[in-house]
């Protein structure tokens, strides 16, 4: 569990050295300075200590699907402003700003493709778009990707990363929890697999709907996963939270996750599960069941 403990190793000189931002990356866990290119080749996993940095949404599509197999759905879908919401900023301005920053219309990429040749529906949340918050577009795109899986009789995989509900859509953001859960109920009835991959961080309304409803719930090492935010809990119970609270390892220990999987093994690991659940034969190249760590 040492990966998130603040190390006190004195690296002051190196810390202060100006690193050209686009060449080097310092691992926040082991403080090792690594070629950024190395980090990227390694799916943002530290080659030294295997600490998992966050990975951009589109990279999960590349990570999980066979090359060139992905067809995106509803890429142009945008949110309305059903409440005409205005806080310090107008909601449409926030949306436009997020769009400029990410080049995406909302906080989710969805579509279908193949995973080790198995056809799947896939949805990946983008935390960089208003904190991966769930509003009408996230809900509708998940509903559509889920229905696509229903129509095609294929499995559905959702990669979650979210701060929770999109407050600026008020009650409609809350209702997306009901909507997405309802489509998963349909997949259940149809006997189709649903895999939930929870990445850092997954909290609030997303955790309390589809992210926790996987036939198999998988996470990456160290991911923060919870319902209430740690600060809210601290204020409520008026005491400090134990070390490692709400981390993937904590959830595994408490029975909320099936597995924690190293990102670099993720595709193979999910594909094995899918073949079990779809009664497909193991591929000839597959290693015979080695006990997992």
């Amino acid at each position, binding site marked *: 569990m040492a990966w998130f403990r603040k190390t006190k190793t004195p690296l002051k000189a190196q810390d202060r050295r100006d690193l050209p931002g686009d060449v080097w990356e310092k691992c926040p866990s082991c403080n090792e300075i690594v070629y950024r290119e190395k980090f990227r080749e390694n799916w943002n996993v530290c080659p030294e200590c295997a600490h998992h940095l966050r990975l951009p949404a589109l990279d999960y599509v590349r990570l999980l699907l066979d090359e060139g197999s992905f067809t995106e759905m509803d890429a142009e879908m945008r949110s309305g402003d059903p409440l005409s919401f205005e*806080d310090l900023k107008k909601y449409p301005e926030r949306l436009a700003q997020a769009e400029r920053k990410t080049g995406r219309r909302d906080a989710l990429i969805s579509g279908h493709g193949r995973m080790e040749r198995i056809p799947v529906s896939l949805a990946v949340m983008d935390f960089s778009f208003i904190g991966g918050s769930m509003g009408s577009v996230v809900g509708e795109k998940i509903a559509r990707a889920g229905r696509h899986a229903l129509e095609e009789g294929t499995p559905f995989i959702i990669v979650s990363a979210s701060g929770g509900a999109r407050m600026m859509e008020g*009650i409609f953001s809350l209702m997306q929890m009901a909507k997405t859960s309802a489509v998963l*109920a349909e997949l259940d009835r149809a006997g189709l697999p649903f895999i939930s991959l929870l990445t850092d961080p997954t909290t609030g309304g997303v*955790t*309390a709907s589809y992210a926790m*409803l996987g036939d198999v719930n998988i996470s990456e090492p160290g991911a923060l996963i919870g319902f209430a935010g740690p600060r809210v809990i601290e204020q409520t119970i008026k005491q400090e939270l134990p070390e490692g609270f709400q981390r993937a390892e904590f959830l595994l220990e408490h029975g909320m996750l099936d597995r924690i999987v190293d990102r670099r093994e993720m595709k193979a690991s999910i594909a094995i599960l899918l073949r079990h659940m779809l009664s497909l034969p193991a591929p000839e190249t597959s290693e015979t069941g080695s006990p997992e760590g």
Partner: protein
Amino acid sequence: MATVAHLDFEKAIAEVEEQIDRLRHMAREKGLDVTGEMESLEGKLKSLQTETYENLDPIERVQVARHPRRPYTLDYLERIFTDFVELHGDRMYRDDESIVAGWARLDGESVMVIGHQKGRDMKENLQRNFGMPHPEGYRKALRLMKLAEKFGRPVFTMIDTPGAYPGLGAEERGQAEAIARNLREMAALTVPTISVIIGEGGSGGALAIGVTDRILMMENSVYSVISPEGCAAILWKSGSERDKAATALKLTAPDLNHLGVIDRIIKEPTGGAHADPDATAEALHGVLRETLDELKSLSPEELHEQRLEKYFAMGEWHPRS
């Protein structure tokens, strides 16, 4: 009653109520005839109540929804239903008393009633955890919904919670999982389901018993993805902007009716539900009856289809199809 706290905007009402009390007391002690004065004071009270309650701001509605004298689930159960048999426990961990549930009869017909339960005083609130359930509360609710389904009986839920409890044990035992499971299972129940927000509809903790065929709201209840205080702290970076947040969130019954999220509003008496719990319960009784009759005319397949359509249509996105 005189010791019960009033909301700020109810001060004037409270003063007249006190005058009436004093007058009545005096009349009794001294054997005076005060009919005339009494009538005028009561008239004044009525018009004050009307004036105040017809012009409630969203944040004032939030306060009425949280009013310490507001009728809770057990108050409605007592007035609307008969033959109530409370059932306890989630069969896994413990009985969570912030949710009450059990069999009851609506006009003689057996139904399952499930609702959040707040307490009236500190002792009760400790027992009820201020109406904030742990995962075991939601698991009890689901267990009993499934029981109702097994016997083909309708499910009524009453929503009144600040939210699901944000605590250590709640997280350890899977608050998120418990809520999520309820959402999915409620979407697939084969019996008619009706929810009514009677006070506070606090986010996921409310929705966890609220994915129903019909969503009703008491006139002065509120339903929101986040409390106005929480929203103000995050988006305005100041908890004191809660009035603005309450308005922006469109959390009142008329707003949510206008947005098409809820199906019907139940009118409260002048002065709010707490001014006359009996009349409030009677109004709710009538609407529950009508709503249930309407749902009973549908086959399980039709129910299922309409429920999916209802939730799939929630939200605003472009292009629509």
